[in-house]
């Protein structure tokens, strides 16, 4: 379905939860590139997508977080870029109910611009463009997420805008410092939000790094800077800890849902979960949203 119409129609849209942690639960091994499961184990990817739609997600994103040109080159599988992206897009499109959306997921390159690294903005942009071109035929909107450098984010936005006219959700990832929310590169939340408004995206978001309780304040600051803009948030389910070789998220799905409820009572148009969240979290959010909107 058309993303902007859905956004207009519904007060609150429910995004999906994590992909990586769901793949781990299904046997993703050390050294494997999760995105490659789109072609090696399409049935597993399909099952996870289906679970999220079934749990109540309005928006589910492709399993293509690392499937941009630069990141895949680092893994030595850049030749699989088209196959990975197209397979993920095709699977998700084939099971997407008519009143819901397919979101094309784009994550950071993993490279850094000077002075931290030696990447060139042009190479990063080209890498994102290749991914956007492969995903474009299947999606209703884009989610460019987990970026910590606003320059790289702007390069990705531009790359997507060249390849597609579909709306963009742009999510930076912030850490909490004594002086407020900043990315690890030192971009402040306020600066990022203003730059994103100027870049022509449809929704401004934030995901990962912080847990749901930290997002309560973060959303307040975002709202002050962007009074009328649609906001999207995907917090982590607390911080992961490994016990007996398995990652454990100490925060319960119920605690996560309670924080999101607090955010939604005041603000937020699009909510979902990042690392550590699964169908249980999404189902709890569905109930909360339905109660809040009388749906």
């Amino acid at each position, binding site marked *: 379905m058309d993303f902007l119409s859905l956004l207009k129609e519904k007060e609150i849209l429910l995004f999906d939860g994590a992909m990586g*942690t769901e793949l781990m639960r299904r046997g993703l091994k*050390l050294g494997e590139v999760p995105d490659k499961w789109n072609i090696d184990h399409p049935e597993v990817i399909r099952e996870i997508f289906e679970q999220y739609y079934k749990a109540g997600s309005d928006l589910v994103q492709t399993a293509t977080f690392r499937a941009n040109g630069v990141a895949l080159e680092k893994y030595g599988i850049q030749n699989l870029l088209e196959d990975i992206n197209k397979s993920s897009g095709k699977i998700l499109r084939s099971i997407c109910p008519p009143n819901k959306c397919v979101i094309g997921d784009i994550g950071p390159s*993993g490279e850094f611009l000077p002075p931290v690294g030696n990447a060139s903005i042009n190479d990063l942009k080209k890498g994102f463009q290749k991914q956007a071109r492969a995903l474009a035929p299947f999606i209703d909107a884009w989610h460019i997420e987990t970026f910590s450098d606003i320059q790289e984010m702007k390069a990705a936005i531009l790359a997507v805008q060249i390849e597609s006219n579909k709306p963009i959700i742009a999510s930076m990832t912030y850490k909490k*410092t004594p002086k407020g929310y*900043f990315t*690890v590169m030192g971009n402040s939340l306020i600066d990022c939000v203003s730059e994103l408004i100027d870049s022509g995206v449809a929704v401004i978001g934030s995901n990962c790094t912080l847990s749901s309780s930290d997002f309560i304040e973060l959303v307040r600051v975002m709202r002050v800077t962007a009074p009328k803009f649609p906001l999207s948030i995907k917090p982590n389910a607390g911080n992961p800890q*490994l*016990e007996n070789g398995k990652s454990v998220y100490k925060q319960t799905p119920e605690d996560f849902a309670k924080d999101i409820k607090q955010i939604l009572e005041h603000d937020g148009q699009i909510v979902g979960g990042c690392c550590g969240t699964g169908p249980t979290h999404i189902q709890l959010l569905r109930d909360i949203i339905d109660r809040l909107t009388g749906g």
Partner: protein
Amino acid sequence: MDSIYEEMAASVVELDMEKAKSLAQKALDEQLPLLEAIEKGFGEGIKRVGNLWDAGEFFLPELMRGAQVMQEAVDIITPHLEEGSRARETKGKVVMATIEGDIHTIGKTIVATMLKANGFEVIDLGADVKAEDIIAEAVKHRADLIGVSALLTTTMIGQKKIIELLEQQGIRDKFKVILGGAPVTSKWVEECKADGYAENAVAAVTKAKQLLGLS
């Protein structure tokens, strides 16, 4: 003397490359105790940069720039160290890498930078390195310490593999092993039977010194 050391430290904190280089040259021209100039001057500066990073005052670009300023100043002084006074003693040799399957380099690079700045010899193997290769390099370089980073919960299991392989090869006692990365906790370190972990780069330096009996 202390005031020039303070100026050197300040040049690193202010990320002022020209000032740092000219102070390094001044140390040579005025025949200052060079080792002291590195330790009390530029070394003190990078420690402060590390503290500012931990306090959320500095971010990645400032941290990396600070390390570059420190490095270039020290590079001016180092060739002259061996001539006169004793060479700057290395605090120990560290082989570092981000584990197989994980391409995250920020945390590992920050720790490597801080260790280097604090007098350790660091062999940085980069990211996505197999456990077997990390061990082979540690053996080859006769490292004192192995540092393994993992940011993903999917890859941190590889940190455990390092210890298991060292045990299998009967060389566990040759190295101290420290783990790093956002999801790593003291409990995980215990479970892996590693020697330690640190919450941040400054703590990593303290931990490395402590493990090698330097503090």
